[in-house]
């Protein structure tokens, strides 16, 4: 079938595929940070960027060193971390619980979903004066504020995750006459886990953001309190040092969730 081939035009087929799939590029992220810092350093040193606008990165660095050597770093970080832990654990576990109930029971869903969507856009800082009355100015109110802020987004993501559990798996459970409890614990919960964990990423970021609001209420130590004080003294070096610490906390939390996802969700293909 290829007799007359010699006479014809012959060329290779042109390539037209590829692309549109992100490839991992190392070091770019880091170098963006480094460049940014260097530009800021140069800008503030030359006076091109006024010291009112941005602190000098090296000064922020020195503030860290001071915080470290004076031992104040831990004095600020530890209370914040414990507030975060208690508050976020409370809010997230309550949120997961309520989210699952909403996912499972139509009446609870009908009653609570509108309430929760009404509560969602309420800024927690607006309620600060009330938190003082409701929960006092001790740790309780800080826990409560963080818990409250973590609660709503967790509920929303959890019941979404329960809704997304493959219904055919549930039917399978029923077809083997599994008990309601078995279906919930062995099918619904593990199936909702990926959605719950990825929802936690967002809720915990919000918890960190709320640390500052929480520490508005009578906190002497804590990263939020440190930032607030720096802000009120217009001490940009400390303000940025505090912000960097929050950033690091955020990245850490996200890494921890990533770790759990890897461990618990290895079954995902």
């Amino acid at each position, binding site marked *: 079938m290829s007799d007359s081939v010699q006479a014809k035009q012959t060329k290779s087929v042109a390539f037209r595929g590829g692309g549109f799939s992100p490839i991992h590029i190392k070091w770019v992220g880091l170098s963006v940070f480094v460049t940014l810092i260097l530009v800021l350093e140069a800008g503030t040193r030359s006076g091109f960027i006024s010291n009112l606008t941005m602190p000098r990165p090296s000064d922020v660095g020195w503030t860290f060193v001071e915080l470290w050597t004076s031992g104040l770093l831990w004095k600020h970080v530890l209370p914040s971390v414990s507030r975060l832990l208690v508050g976020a654990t409370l809010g997230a576990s309550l949120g997961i619980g309520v989210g699952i109930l909403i996912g499972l029971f139509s009446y609870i869903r009908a009653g609570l979903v509108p309430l929760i969507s009404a509560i969602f856009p309420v800024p927690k800082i607006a309620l600060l004066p009330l938190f003082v009355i409701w929960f006092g100015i001790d740790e309780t109110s800080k826990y409560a504020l963080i818990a409250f802020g973590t609660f709503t987004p967790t509920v929303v993501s959890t019941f979404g995750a329960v809704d997304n559990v493959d219904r*055919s*798996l549930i*039917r*399978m459970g*029923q*077809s*083997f*006459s*599994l*008990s309601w409890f*078995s279906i919930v614990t*062995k*099918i619904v919960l*593990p*199936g909702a*886990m990926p959605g719950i964990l990825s929802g936690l990423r967002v809720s915990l970021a919000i918890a960190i953001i709320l640390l500052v609001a929480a520490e508005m209420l009578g906190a002497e130590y804590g990263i939020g309190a440190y930032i607030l004080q720096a802000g009120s003294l217009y001490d940009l070096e400390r303000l940025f040092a505090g912000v960097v610490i929050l950033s690091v906390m955020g990245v850490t939390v996200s890494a921890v969730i990533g770790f759990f996802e890897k461990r618990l*969700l*290895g*079954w*995902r*293909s």
Partner: protein
Amino acid sequence: MDLRLENIGHSYGDMEVMQGMDLEIPAGKIVCIVGPSGCGKSTLLRLIGGLEQPTTGRVLQIGEPPVESLNPLTFVFQDFALLPWRTVEGNISLVLEDHGIRGKQADAIISGVLARTKLTEFRKALPKQLSGGMKQRVAISRALAVNPAVMLMDEPLSALDSQTRELLMDDLVSLWTREPFTAVYVTHNLHEAVRLGHFIVVLSRRPGRIREVVAVDKPLAERELGDVDLEQTQKYLWNLMREEALAADKELINV
């Protein structure tokens, strides 16, 4: 245990899906149900298995299921319905746990059914590591583990490629030959129907009714690819269904 359908009819809201179905499902036989898309095959199977309640008529169990049967009416689904977070073993023990079967006793059952489906080496594998054919064999093992009186199979092979399908049909035939089971087997593949069915029930398009019940007498083990008489039955069935299939394929779906 036999099953009997008496005047089964079913509607979803205003839409009537099936009408006046009467059918006997005798113990130890495989009854295949074929019909055009949307004629209610899956619905019928769910009605038989008690996952849905018929609008009219009733499904009767005649005689007691064997005492050793943990779950008399057991489904095998098209999409396998394996829990992706459990291993092969875990997926089978799932359906034993609720009957209080654990530990050694469960181990014995699991080893038994995995041996029957030739999956012994894959006991610890996760579903994501398995090919489609293996996944369906796991689902079949799981069904076998509860000693079903009747297996309800909803297009169990249609998610597989045709070569795997061919192999799995052989497996089902040899499973049945060694130890006959009762099954209702829904498919729209006539080739599968003539290969596996003792009776082939042909449904009309929606609202589904029984058009004809075709008996195939040749023993399962003797049926083979390229058998002329089976090909003739298949062609007969295809002519019965062709018009309906054509019409079904030309309908807009209301969303």
